């Protein structure tokens, strides 16, 4: 799908290193990008760092973007890759870890799940689980692709996903359900 004229113009200006155009692109996609990266990070500050790294890569590699394609999927790939790079920089261990250590007490029940609750639960996962869960469940990657991205086997990817989901359910259902609370 071709890009609209304004976006095309904006990208052209970005290609010419127009700081104002770059800032506009940054402003337009920052929040969306941060919500992607924050699921891979342990904190908002870490996610912001990833977003900024991602934008640097975007501006540096903008010439390679195919204008016949939609912009956001391309941006998303870059942010996800940037987030994975950041994960690998940290103590990256693609193998399953002790689930007991991953349990995090959250203040609300699933009936009242808010974005912050879900995000906190995701962020509490180990980097290996967090990456596989996000890639598969949120981004829609297949296990083959995840295995390639994270340099793990497909079986490890499947295993990590299963355990991540169990952990999330356990964490979120561990909370008191409002209906089960005494009146």
């Amino acid at each position, binding site marked *: 799908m071709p890009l609209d004229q304004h976006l095309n113009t904006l990208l052209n200006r970005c290609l010419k*290193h127009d700081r104002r155009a*770059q800032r506009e692109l*940054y402003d337009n996609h920052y929040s969306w990008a941060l919500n992607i990266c924050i699921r891979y990070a342990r904190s908002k500050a870490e996610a912001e760092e990833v977003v*900024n790294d991602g934008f640097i890569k975007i501006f*540096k590699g903008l010439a390679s973007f195919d204008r016949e394609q939609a912009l956001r999927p391309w941006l998303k790939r870059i942010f996800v890759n940037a987030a994975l790079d950041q994960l690998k920089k940290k103590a990256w261990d693609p193998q399953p870890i002790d689930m007991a250590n991953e349990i995090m007490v959250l203040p609300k029940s699933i009936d009242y*799940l808010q974005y912050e609750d879900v*995000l906190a639960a995701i962020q509490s996962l180990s980097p290996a689980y967090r990456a596989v869960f996000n890639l598969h469940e949120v981004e829609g990657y297949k296990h083959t692709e995840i295995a390639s991205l994270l340099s793990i086997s497909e079986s490890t990817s499947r295993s990590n996903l299963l355990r991540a989901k169990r952990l999330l359910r356990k964490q979120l259902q561990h909370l008191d359900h409002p209906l089960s609370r005494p009146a």
Partner: protein
Amino acid sequence: MKQKNDFWKEFDSALSQPPTHQTTDEGWNQVTAGLDQQTRPNKFPILIWLFLQFLGGMAILIIVGIPFSQDSRLFLHAQTHESSAEIASWETNSNSRDIDQTHGQEVRSESIVQDPVENLPKPKDEDVEAVLETSRFSTPDSTHLTKNRPFKAAPSIPNPPQIHLEWPTTYPDFNIQIAPIKASDGRNNYLDINAQINAESPIEEQLSLRYGRKLFNNFWLSLGVGSSRYFWDQSFFNDTEVQEIISSTPGDIIDFARSGRDVNVLLDLERPLFNRNSRWQLAPIVGIQASIWRQRAQEVTYFSVYNVTQIITDRIHTEDVGLKLDQFYLGGRASFKILPKWSLTADIRQAFITQNTQNTATLFMGLRYKW
């Protein structure tokens, strides 16, 4: 199973309602800093290079041996001409003296010239007659000497080099230059090849090579090295000036012809401000120019006898070498990009301190390559 589906449905629903985050200047600055960091090479090579240039300049000064004693002006003037010896020989000679109508005007300031009048006795009548016998259009060639001349030739003893440091005098100077400039397109270096044609006398030509480098925050420092050539000759002086020269104080030395070659060093700072990412760009500049110069001059001494205007000339050949701080200048550059890495620029500069004693209108044309 239903419960499980409900759980993930709830989970997805919550996850699909992320908050909105506001961008911050701090975050954006990190991005721009990252972009600059990746596109800008290390600053240290240019700083080291500038430092080495400074050391080289100091080494030259030390080798030349600048005395700061007699004249504190910042002007290195190594004069090797023979004017003093020639002038001193007025008392007893001169077989090499000719009568000439050639004339000139001193155009290069601060030449070291001794006033010959104080040391010169008035010539006797027979001396004058002897001098007047010689051709008014003769050349300084010694083969033209006549035996009738009462003067005896004195040996030409070169003076020891006289070196002065001279600070430029404040003098308005106006230059118009056309030269290429970079556009703020993410590149960090440029190289200029410029040719300058001076529209006024003295005729001066300059070829220069200028290297520019982005420092920080889009400030650009450029260092240029050029070579200029100039010359004056009597064709610049019209008859009116001839009369003025004749009626002025006798015994002076005036320029007859000069030619020289300078090695110029220009250092300026520019900061693109307007439309810096478009094809057109404007940038203020501030800079400094210094030169190592070498010139040859043929000077003429004239003398007035008994209120009768006569010109007795002595051609004096000099060769000077100097280091001078030419000028400080403020100005602006307008650039026009013609190709992705190539551009043209027009420079307008106002020099507010200059060594030159003449206003100059200068046209700079060149081509800039950026990478």
